[in-house]
């Protein structure tokens, strides 16, 4: 280290020269080039001159002859015991504060030397800022969120501290046994280091003591906390809430929490926090923990969990495949749930014979591509009787060709658990249906007598004759479905997208003339219109909407900007506002 002395002399000459040039009024950049010193160095040197004259400009020789300024052995123990206890002053320990103490004890030492001792006593800590900068994972966080934090801090004239909790082993001394100590520390990006390792009864007390003292050190703090989550107890949060001078953020790698500012407000402190409101908007924009699952990921995982539970319990499972967007998503999820195996069940399509042509084409294509068995069931008796939506009306048509046919299909094959794509947001009575819905021998649903469903534990026990309808998409909304289709590129029937189609206006709805079985009323002529469908069913019963949406994203856009619910296009729910509930009780899916 002493080799630096000649360099130091040369350096000091350059520093003095730089100050002279600045005093002559030379520009900073010019001086920098002339004396080969960086601008900050020149500014510092200039400031030092103004403060303390030429003497102050010189840098002190780096390093020192060994032993020169070290603390005598006998004082060292006193000093270290101080460093492990609370300082008398109401601030945390810093190198300079401890150096002052050493001086009082009669040891001529510097803050720098103290720093080395602190390191030796294992009271140091990693520079969190530096390690964040060298971590690839945190690049995004540093460029976005951290930048915002620093900007806010600058505006508020608040000092940024990186802080954490760590432990050290205290070596055995004459008076004490070897022990493990917890200590809290904080450092600035410029390397100022503070710590507190006193005996506290509990973590919360320790936490509050430390940050309280830190506030005496700097009046406004922005803390980036890389500590233990358990330290964030109601007591500490409460305390933080009461100290709005502290902006408290979590380091993204603590995992426990997004780097949202912690303002979990306690009841005791329900009011007079102006701070939170003005910042609420900013806060909400702050960083999400990269490890937090998105809502679609959580929904996906839940659906897969349900499917696996049901299949584990089923003797003969099946999936009702209605060809709609929900069915498409459900099938996609089933493939994920059992990968690399194929879903261990067949697809069942209850065919009324009145679906859109495009749906039949799509169905056969999917069956071929997935390699799953496709069971198509029709209520032959009903069809033979000539039941159709035109002469019998939607209610009887649905009842015989859909509900009855479904029951027939399930009875014929003896499926004990059948998956359906119903969602709770579709309709009010569905909002109360369980994920596993039990049907008696007549397939009837009893809304008043449903099994409670707790946690993610599903009771799959059935009595003889009972069967289960399982709804893995219960918690999805229409928007979730479309977002997921967009994200995962799931194929859906093209009828969901706008195209020129032949339609007639009936009872206020655009009905597509999909084949020549549809009788025209007097004065009706099909016209070509750019339309699409929000839900798919039997073509004579499904109203189209005029639309320009030709892609998934267009569809989402249209949906978000429109104000009608998806089932509105379906005639079946319209009879009375409780009609779906009645149909479900009768065995409709």
């Amino acid at each position: 280290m002493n080799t630096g002395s000649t360099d130091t002399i040369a350096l000091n000459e350059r520093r003095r020269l730089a100050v002279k040039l600045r005093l002559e009024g030379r520009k900073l950049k010019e001086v920098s080039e002339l004396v080969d010193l960086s601008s900050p160095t020149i500014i510092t040197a200039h400031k030092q001159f103004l403060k303390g004259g030429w003497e102050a400009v010189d840098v002190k020789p780096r390093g020192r002859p060994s032993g020169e300024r070290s603390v005598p052995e006998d004082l060292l123990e006193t000093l270290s015991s101080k460093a492990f206890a609370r300082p008398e002053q109401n601030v945390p320990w810093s190198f300079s504060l401890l150096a002052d103490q050493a001086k009082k004890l009669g040891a001529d030492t510097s803050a720098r030397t103290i720093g080395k001792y602190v390191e030796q006593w294992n009271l140091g800590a990693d520079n969190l800022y530096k390690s964040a900068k060298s971590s690839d994972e945190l690049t995004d966080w540093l460029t976005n969120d951290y930048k915002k934090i620093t900007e806010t801090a600058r505006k508020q004239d608040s000092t940024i501290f990186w802080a954490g909790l760590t432990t050290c082993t205290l070596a055995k001394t004459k008076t004490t046994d070897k022990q493990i100590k917890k200590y809290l520390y904080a450092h600035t990006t410029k390397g100022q280091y503070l710590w507190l390792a006193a005996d506290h009864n509990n973590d919360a007390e320790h936490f509050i003591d430390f940050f309280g003292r830190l506030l005496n050190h700097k009046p406004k703090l922005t803390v980036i906390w890389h500590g233990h989550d358990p330290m964030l107890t109601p007591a500490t949060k409460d305390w933080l809430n009461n100290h709005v001078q502290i902006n408290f953020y979590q380091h993204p790698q603590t995992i426990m929490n997004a780097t949202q500012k912690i303002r979990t407000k306690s009841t005791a402190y329900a009011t007079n926090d102006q701070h939170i409101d003005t910042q609420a908007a900013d806060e909400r924009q702050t960083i999400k923990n990269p490890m937090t699952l998105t809502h679609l990921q959580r929904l996906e995982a839940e659906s897969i969990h349900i499917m696996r539970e049901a299949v584990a319990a089923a003797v003969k499972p099946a999936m009702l495949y209605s060809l709609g967007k929900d069915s498409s998503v459900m099938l996609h999820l089933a493939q994920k749930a059992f990968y690399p195996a194929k879903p261990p069940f067949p697809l069942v399509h209850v065919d009324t014979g009145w679906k859109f042509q495009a749906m039949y084409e799509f169905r056969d294509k999917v069956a071929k591509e997935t390699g799953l068995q496709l069971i198509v069931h029709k209520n032959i008796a009903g069809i033979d009787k000539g039941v159709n939506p035109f002469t019998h009306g939607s209610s009887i048509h649905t009842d015989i060709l859909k509900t009855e046919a479904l029951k027939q299909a399930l009875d014929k094959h003896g499926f004990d658990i059948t998956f359906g794509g119903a969602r709770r947001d579709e309709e009010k009575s569905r909002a109360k249906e369980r994920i596993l819905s039990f049907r008696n021998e007549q397939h009837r649903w009893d809304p008043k007598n449903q099994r409670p469903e707790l946690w993610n534990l599903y009771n799959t026990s059935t009595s003889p004759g009972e069967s289960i309808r399982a709804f893995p998409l219960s918690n999805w909304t229409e928007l979730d479905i479309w977002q997921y289709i967009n994200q995962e590129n799931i194929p859906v029937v093209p009828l969901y997208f706008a195209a020129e189609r032949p339609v007639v206006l009936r009872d206020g709805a655009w009905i597509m003339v999909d084949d020549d079985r549809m009788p025209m009323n007097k004065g009706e002529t099909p016209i070509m219109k750019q339309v699409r469908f929000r839900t798919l069913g039997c073509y004579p019963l499904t109203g189209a909407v005029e639309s320009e949406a030709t892609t998934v994203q267009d569809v989402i856009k249209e949906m978000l900007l429109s104000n009608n619910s998806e089932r509105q296009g379906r005639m079946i729910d319209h009879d009375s506002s409780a009609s779906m509930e009645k149909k479900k009780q009768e065995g409709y899916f």
Partner: protein
Amino acid sequence: MATTKELIKNDIAKYLSQHETKDMLQLITCGSVDDGKSTLIGRLLHESQALTEDQLENAETDSIKHGTQGDSLDFALLVDGLAAEREQGITIDVAYRYFNTDQRKFIIADCPGHEQYTRNMITGASTAEAAIILVDARKGIQTQTRRHTYLASLMGIRNVVLAVNKMDLVSYAEDTFNKIVEEFNEFTQSEQLEIESSTAIPLSALNGDNLTARGTNMPWYHGSTLLSLLETMKVDQEIALNKPFRLPVQWVNRPNLDFRGFAGTVASGTIKTGDQVRVQPSGKTSSIERIVTKDGDLDRAIAGQAITLTLKDEIDISRGDIISTTETPASSANQFESTIVWMNEEPLLPGRQYLLKCGTSTSTATITDIKHEINVDTLEQIAAKTLEINNIGNCNINLDRQIAFDNYEDNRATGSFILVDRVTNETVGAGTLNFALRRSQNIHMQAVDVDKGLRSELKEQKSCVLWFTGLSGSGKSTIANIVEAKLAKEGRHTYLLDGDNVRHGLNKDLGFTDEDRVENIRRIGEVARLMVDSGLIVLTAFISPFRAERQMARALLEEDEFMEVYVETPLAVAEQRDPKGLYKKARSGDLKNFTGIDSPYEQPENPEMLVDTSSNSAEQCAEQIIRTLRERGVI
């Protein structure tokens, strides 16, 4: 919202990419009929634009029919789902509602407030990460507020929001609000409820004050609005990340001989390929080979993901096991202290067997002891012999085998369970595993050299139980007596356990209530099992009226060791015989809980033997039984 709409219009792709990163919070709302809960939810849905025009229109039509809000729209009608509820004006079940903001997707479990619906609230709370507890500002903290708060804390909900509603009816007075908050704090602190954080917000759901926007009516309130609070709360999935890794195995995936994957949802923690794992309860270890998903293998999986793992070593793992990291594995035990919420009309009976589902494991459970019941209104502990519907009790439970688990407070996913009735298949209870009882780790079966097989062989017979069941006076004891005499004559080793005799000794502390009948049969079952173990042919003659108890006795023995003998006699015939005069006493009301009169007899569904005493003599019946025993190779 205007800016969001602009974004949707102009750049849907950007909007979607922003919304793909949204997270999700599940919450529960609790309050009584009159606290304005449905109005609050209706408002939240409406203001976050989750309601559509036709739904509003529907509500308007309904509003005219049932509305209670005069001319203005009754939001409650939007959310009260079932027809019956609309008509009665009360919410009777849990309903789930969904809405989105720019920050989050929310799932609300809307729970009714009446005491009889404790089970519904527990249901909603089990998956909730936060609870909104409504109080009416005019009424302040009510008994049910305490109940809701207690239940939320019991179910491990970390965040509680005290929504002081109807501030408009108390002139938006700050004092009123502060008093309520103070009282609430006193309660949560004095009862030491485990709530991590609670926040109070003064609201008027009807006018929308402090719901999504401040409004001008309460300038003294500076805290956040309800919605902004909900948007910034920590979600449980994040919290689960820092806990030890747990994967309850749902399904063993074997599409071909080369692949053996263990599918499940990561309950907590994270896992990387190469990590050492321990499988509980077997304790076997291996390390992670691959983390398989359809979208490609992962290097790391985190809490909340549904994945499939393959391991380096071929070890035996089945559904119900839990895969943990080796450093911090799940525990395994078969006796627990637990808190049980009873959910069925039929009360919980100690000694009766139920199916217990915890994680993905299913076992048979017996509640060995109800330590006390908890009064959910006063939080007092009271002595109890049974738990009725909606009651909560601390109970010891005993499982038929070891299961892997964590304490509920450490892990909601691996420390919770449901109880299923073995006969009706209904979900009858739900509970939390509080801790394993130490004795379960210390009691081991003593292995002996001379076993049942050897003992039976020496006696030249196959030991078994003939379990006679039937009404009082049906002739159980008479027939059993003759059968034993016949067996003895052949030199067989037998023992007859008779109802009345046992009640004079072993079971003299038991009465005739349902609970005591269960315990009576449990003890007899255990004694019979020991006797079978000693190589005897055991005959028992007890009314044993409940199917579940006979099932319990059957479950103690091997499959072919238990033979149910149904002594069938019509009630009228038995009553006519009335050898001990008991029917007469029961009819006159001197004898309570008498089977067939005021206590039910559940007929066996598939007895091994059925003897009809109304058309056959006791001797004939005994002969029939001996014949069957020969056919079955018992003698």
